[in-house]
């Protein structure tokens, strides 16, 4: 009876007696939350603040110099040609991979939203690239696109698309694109599964109604499914862009940023500054700048998403 009184629509009410009972007889909810929050705080929040502090100092691991220099590292950064080089590659990579993966993912999701025999097999197969460690993906594409014995060269030569072997990730003109291809391979299936889940939340009655109204499949896609899918599409693209912006493993293992810095991205550039040059102050300024850029990307997507949601709502 007492329980029934403290409940409103299945939600417990905060009544005095109940609070006392919670405090006396059980670890409070906050205590249950504490280990998780402590781990997240120690490994994410505190280091970010420490990194911010480091970025304002002139400090290296190799020498005992350690002085507060304000925004000196950031000024040095903006004048650093290598930084802008990495910046450009990162943006190119982020834009190319996000666009390709969203477009391809959408096409695959549309195929999978039809029912056909063996659909389960296709869905299962699509999880394979996602499960493979990125380092393995790097090495795998290193072998596929190998300049001498790679099977990609062999196949393209056989069908006559190229005359001679191409040194895909060994030449400055194609290295970044090879990395884009590897990333598209690894991430598109997951994108497709996300979008498929979004497509499946669209009520069947809507698509059926449009069919009855005589809409052809193309019109149905363009005027019914795409507008309803837009929020999911934007959220998925945002997560993808945030992820692509911090790409590290693929580049570090496949090219190490080379040849001639043509695939250097912000993460690899930062990592080298930190752990090869041991420039902890300068490297922290770099990583802080990346962090700020990520926030900007998230905010931009958030604004677009809100506008889109309002459009759909009206």
């Amino acid at each position, binding site marked *: 009876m007492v*329980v029934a009184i403290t409940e409103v629509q*299945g939600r417990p009410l905060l009544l005095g007696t*109940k*609070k006392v009972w*919670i405090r006396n007889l*059980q*670890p409070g*909810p*906050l205590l*249950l*939350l504490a*280990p*998780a929050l402590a*781990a*997240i705080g120690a*490994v*994410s929040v505190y*280091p*970010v603040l*420490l*990194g911010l502090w480091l970025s304002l100092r002139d400090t290296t691991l190799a020498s005992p110099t350690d002085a507060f220099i304000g925004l000196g590292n950031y000024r040095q950064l903006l004048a650093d040609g290598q930084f802008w080089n990495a910046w450009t590659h990162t943006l190119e990579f982020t834009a190319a991979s996000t666009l390709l993966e969203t477009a391809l993912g959408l*096409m695959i999701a549309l195929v999978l939203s*039809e029912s*056909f025999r063996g659909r*389960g097999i*296709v*869905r*299962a*197969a699509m*999880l*394979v690239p996602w499960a*493979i*460690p*990125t380092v*393995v993906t790097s*090495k795998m*594409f290193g072998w*596929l696109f190998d300049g001498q*014995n790679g*099977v990609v060269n062999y196949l393209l030569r056989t069908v006559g698309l190229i005359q001679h072997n191409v040194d895909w990730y060994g030449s400055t003109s194609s290295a970044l694109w090879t990395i884009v291809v590897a990333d598209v*391979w690894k991430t598109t*299936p997951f994108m497709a*599964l*996300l979008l498929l889940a*979004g497509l499946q939340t669209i009520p069947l009655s809507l698509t059926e109604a449009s069919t009855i109204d005589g809409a052809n499949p193309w019109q149905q896609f363009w005027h019914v499914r795409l507008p309803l899918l837009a929020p999911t599409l934007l959220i998925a693209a945002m*997560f993808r862009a945030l992820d692509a*912006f*911090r790409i590290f*493993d693929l580049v570090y*293992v496949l090219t190490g940023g080379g040849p001639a810095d043509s695939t250097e991205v912000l993460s690899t550039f930062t*990592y080298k500054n*930190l*752990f090869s040059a041991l420039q*902890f102050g300068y*490297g*922290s300024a770099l*990583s802080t700048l*990346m*962090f700020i850029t*990520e926030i900007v990307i998230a905010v931009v997507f958030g604004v677009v998403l809100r506008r889109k949601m309002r459009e759909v709502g009206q």
Partner: protein
Amino acid sequence: MRGAGVQPQKLRRTVSVPPGRALLYACAAFVVVWSIGPFLWQMSTSLQLDRELVSGRPRLIPDPITFEHFINIFTGKSFHRYLINSVVTASSTTFLCLLFGSVAAYALARLDLRGRFGFLGFILAVSMFPQIAIVAPLYVLASDLGWLDTYRVLILVYLALGLPLVIWVLFGYFRSIPLTIDEAARIDGAKPLRIFFQIILPMSLPAVVTTGLLCFIAAWNEFMFALAFTSDINHQTVPVGIANFTGLHYVPWGDIAAASVVVTLPLVLLVLAFERHIISGLTGGAIKE
């Protein structure tokens, strides 16, 4: 007559599929080949002799089949060391993630807690921090504590990186269980922790197993922190080991392929076995129902 009555409807459904059935199957087949092709090629490579690999006539079916690459990586490159390190870190991470994450998710989903959505938002925001932004400060901390080249530094980092996903997925799952179950147990005098471990957790086993698997895969595959925080073979994990597989004069593609197969095949089999749960676990958090 009856057959004729059914037929037109069937026909219309077929026609209503945009580019026709054949194209649909062609696309599906392409997706399958595209997804598993590269890994199949890697498996085939791992079973071929080096001289076949550089012969200029690549083939999918190994002839003759050889296991020399698999023998190489264990005898010549002590690959089992990396495997042991990865198993220790990934399974400890998974256990701690599930323990702390499920309890936290329970508190957030089913107990009286002010500002639960504040906590959830905070956890989600933290999961979007770029990892490169925390690697340097953590390195400084770990080095001060003398934790470099230890399992515990990797486990702690992977725990914090894995918790947001565990908490979000399990939060959603716990919320879907009717609250009346807790109430009934509470009337019988059970305390929340007991309700959790004896009722809610067993009821949620499929979700817990799936999130555990996601955690394990994430820890198993992580590269950057392992690269930064470990420098000896007694603590380096598999991704670091594979990244360091480079010969002096040539790239040992056969050995790399063998190592890839050894670390990936168990994952692929696990993922295929839990396919349905993984997909709903991964996509459930991103799409509002």
